[in-house]
């Protein structure tokens, strides 16, 4: 299912989207959809990383200690 979303864009951005769509052989809608999807993924990832950093800091765990976490996990399963 899809909905129509009306968005106002400045002329220069519209021209860039036109040019990019033409060079990629895509419709303008596809180009805009791809860009939005990507931006949403970037924002989701950044939010999850902030959350993860807080959880790790609470436990005093740094990125250099992830190897030890894996070892612990695997040792517990064996």
């Amino acid at each position, binding site marked *: 299912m899809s909905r129509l979303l009306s968005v106002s864009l400045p002329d220069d951005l519209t021209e860039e989207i036109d040019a990019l769509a033409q060079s990629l052989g895509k419709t303008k809608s596809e180009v805009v959809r791809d860009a939005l999807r*990507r931006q949403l993924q970037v924002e989701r*990832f950044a939010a999850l*990383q902030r959350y993860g950093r807080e959880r790790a800091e609470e436990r005093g765990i740094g990125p250099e200690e*992830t190897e030890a976490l894996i070892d612990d*996990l*695997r040792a517990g399963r064996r």
Partner: protein
Amino acid sequence: MLVSAFIAAGPPSRIVEEAIDGRLELVLAVPVMDELQRILTVKLGFDAERWEEVEALLSGLAAELVSPPAEPADPVTGDPDDDLILACAVEAGVAVLVSGDREHLLPLATHRGVRIVTPQALLAELGGRPRAESGGGGIRTHEPPYEGQQFSRLPRSTTPAPLQDTSRDG
């Protein structure tokens, strides 16, 4: 590697960002996702809702989720869990397995056509590849012949198709 990506900015998180940008094809393995879930939820305290968000994000990015082969994995790395991850990479036919595991995986360098590299090494390779960028929109395209194939399987000989190893920091 994915564990690091979700707790700090650095090369592992940049690999995820490159996948978001469509500059590499992400292939995930079931045992990798199982370990990632256990570490994030049990060791780091991610709540169920956040784990579901992680899973949804990665599922949306991944071109494929690979299950382990039916037959037992060959003992290659000295660690049966890493053997399983390696077997998944071979099964999927990926070009590159990204790992920070300097004890078991990285020393192999290559196994049955799969190169094993650090996140830093893969980023260096990607950095050496030219790309066209649009202004302002964050839209990037591969240079020919990759144009328009951002999330499809790309030729093994020319384009890294990493299978993420969650298990080691990179």
